[in-house]
């Protein structure tokens, strides 16, 4: 009898534990694997900004936003906009940034492509404008943007006299395999306006500069998907340092930027780097 009792207790307890555990998982799920980068604070809210790496870096940053009010309650009915701005010595400019969409559980998501790192004199700030109910709020603060260890974003002037920003999105975890590669391509309309550039082809030529400029077979150039991003296939035959030479080609097959890798030309003027 005693035994049965204790077994019952044990079962109940374990069910309870596993249930509560599960709930925990659900609650934290949205921010699982993410690290807080910074919190923007105004009189009413604390706005937490999260990324996988816990920092903002040059290139493509997937950013998760959580808005908490003074009571610490998560606001899940806000409409959010953001504007990153670079304050340089003689000028200001923005960078490509997506719209911010609501995910689940009070988490908003979008991405920002920083073309350059910030410093003491030249710094980035981020303005977040959000509306809850009919009330509009705003918050602005400086953010630290560090330089990524590898080159993952290119800003360049194409031969069509347009300025482009091209940033690597994936593979975030490259493997010795055929990797899915994706990138975002923006056209710079003004210092503060960047629009997704449609119908281009991003040609890739991955090379190992440390191995006599070895390249891999069966790569597929990036073309635009329905979501506006560019997708292709990237073969990496071994681990190590890879230079992904790039060429930007428009719909009429004109190369706007970048050079083909040949016996006499070791690399393109625009490229991404991967090391794993």
């Amino acid at each position, binding site marked *: 009898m005693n035994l049965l009792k204790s077994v019952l207790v044990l079962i109940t307890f374990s069910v309870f534990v596993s249930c509560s555990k599960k709930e925990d998982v659900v609650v934290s799920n949205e921010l699982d694997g993410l690290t807080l980068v910074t919190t923007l604070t105004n009189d009413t809210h604390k706005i937490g900004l999260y990324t996988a790496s816990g920092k903002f870096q040059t290139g493509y940053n997937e950013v998760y936003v959580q808005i908490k009010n003074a009571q610490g309650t998560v606001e899940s009915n806000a409409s959010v906009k953001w504007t990153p701005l670079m304050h340089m010595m003689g000028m200001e400019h923005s960078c490509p940034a997506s719209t911010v969409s609501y995910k689940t559980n009070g988490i908003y998501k979008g991405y920002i492509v920083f073309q350059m790192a910030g410093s003491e004199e030249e710094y980035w700030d981020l303005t977040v404008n959000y509306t809850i109910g009919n009330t509009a709020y705003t918050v602005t603060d400086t953010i630290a943007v560090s330089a990524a260890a590898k080159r993952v974003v290119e800003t360049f002037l194409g031969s069509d006299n347009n300025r482009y920003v091209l940033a690597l999105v994936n593979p975030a975890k490259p493997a010795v395999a*055929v990797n899915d590669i994706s990138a975002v391509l923006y056209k710079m309309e003004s210092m503060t306006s960047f629009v997704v550039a449609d119908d281009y082809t991003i040609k890739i030529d991955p090379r190992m500069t440390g191995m*006599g400029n070895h*390249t891999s077979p069966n790569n597929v150039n990036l073309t635009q998907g329905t979501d506006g991003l560019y997708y292709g296939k990237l073969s990496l*035959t*071994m681990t*190590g340092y890879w230079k992904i030479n790039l060429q930007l080609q428009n719909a009429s097959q004109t190369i706007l930027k970048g050079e083909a890798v040949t016996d006499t030309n070791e690399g393109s003027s625009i490229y991404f780097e991967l090391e794993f």
Partner: protein
Amino acid sequence: MLRLTIAFLLFAVSVYSQDTIRTDLLKEVEIIHKRSLSDKTDKPLATLDKYLEKSNMVNMVRKGAYAWEPYLNGMASERSVVTIDGMRIYAACTDKMDPVTSYVDITNLAKVNVHSGQSGVGASIAGSIDLVRKKGAFGERKLSGMAFTGYETNSAQKVVGGALSFSKPRLFTDIDFTYRHAGNYKAGGGEEVLYSQYTKYNVSANVGYKVNEHSQVEASVIYDRAVNVGYPALTMDVGLARGVIASLAYIRHGWETKVYYNTIRHVMDDTKRPVVAIRMDMPGWSKTAGFYSSLKGSAGRHMWKGNVSGHYNKSLAEMTMYSNTAGEKDMFMLTWPGVLTYYGDVFGEDNYAITDRWRTTVSAGLGVQNNVVDDVQGLESLRIFYPEMERSKVRVLKRLSAAVNYAGDRWQYTVGVGYGERPPGVSEGYGYYLFNSFDRYDYIGNPEMKNEQSVSMNGAVGYRVGRFSGKVSGSYFHLMDYIIGRPRAGLSVMTIGAVGVKVYEQLGYADVINLGVEEDWQIGEYVTWTNRMSYRRGSGKGVKNLPLIQPFTYSSGVGFLRKSFSADVVVNGAVKQARYNEEFGEEGVAGYAVMNVSAGYKFVWGRNGLMLKAGVENVMDRRYRTFADWNKVPRMGRNVFMNLVWSF
């Protein structure tokens, strides 16, 4: 030299004759004499490679002084099955620096059965080579042993070893040990061939126990360890090649069942090379577990045998390259992606006596092989080339053969036909950027290839009368879906300095022809004159000449034997190789002839014997190379050797 090292075929004691079936003309048996007074070889402590090289059916492709690759009937080692006492072993080096034959020492062996065409050991095209270990016998209580040492001037090679055997009516044990150490050798003319040194340790032991009148159990183990092995023909050497080979057998009359396991570790090493494009580590592992059970019997005019066998292997090899740019991460790849092989086989053979002199032999075998790519990264690597590649592949491998023999007093004939299939080898199927230093191509395996098939015909005529005996033998192999690496445009080399990438493909067909002539004259009471000639020809669809095919090669030797004294003079040579494969990096090879002389004497006192053999190889110090010398590395120049064997 060759006179005595090779048991002349017509006198050869083959497995069949032990089974009281008459000698098979298409089988060569290399008797490796115990290093005892009965030894008739000119150089008892020669390496196994040198022994095998004397066979008319075998060529040894050489990348240095050590671990030569046996080519049976002019075909690379993937086309034959090399076993040690029937055990399957897979080499662990992606660059064929460790053929199975490199994991034994001559001291371990009693004989080598070289069999052309299909046999019980498994799917093959060219045939099989079984390295038969020497082992003790039950008998009176007795302890015997020997100790030996040798020295060779050219490479300062030292050989030291010994053996002990103990027998009782129901027990026998043997143990032997050999140590070889050689420095760089010098080619004819005196040029030192750098990175041709090696050191090898080999220990082997056997134990047999007679359970009862009908049955016995035997256990055996070989531990072989080669270190600091130079490969002058390659860009890397070997730091360690280690094999542990163990087995347990149960024998009951004509029924033998064995389980075995072996593990090979092979570590390449470039630290001795002052200049390399990039530093790298290239370790490889191969583990094999298997069994066989064979049964022999007779009924009326039939003598039959059946064999069931199976084995499992895992071959894994890695390459890590250390970037020349400081701070860059290491470059890592799997050159053998953890290839699992599961193989099962059944084989049957029937030998039927039509008359006293005429017999027919019919055999059939069926193997099933499953290859699985075990490592996920390895699989994903190969899928870069073969996006649709399946992880697992099953192959069915069939083989058939039929032969007719005539054995008269003077004449012997045999004529046979065979059909065989083989799967691609590990490198051919799954290799990943394997650099071949001969043609300087990186090779990519092809897992989607079909089995290679072969239809073969072979025949031999032997004649023996009085003081003369001779044999003419030939074989013709017509291979279909012949596996060969071909240049693939558009692929980028991985190895710095490589000229291109080859991918294994299949030629519609290829043909290989082998011809051999051997004759032996007894002149007077003490002198024997022996001649051997052989020729091969290989070509394929769109390939005029297959690579590494032996041109007309000959040897002629006169031996003198009287009581305790023996002496030999032998000339080995070849005509120039005019048929070579440029795509494989071959160039013509000039003809050559080299002379070897040796003499021996044995002393006996009581139960003790002391044998002294000495000789000079390449007496004229000719600088030469043969078709089988990888990357044109010249052969050894003048070499004076001395072997001393004390037995008790």
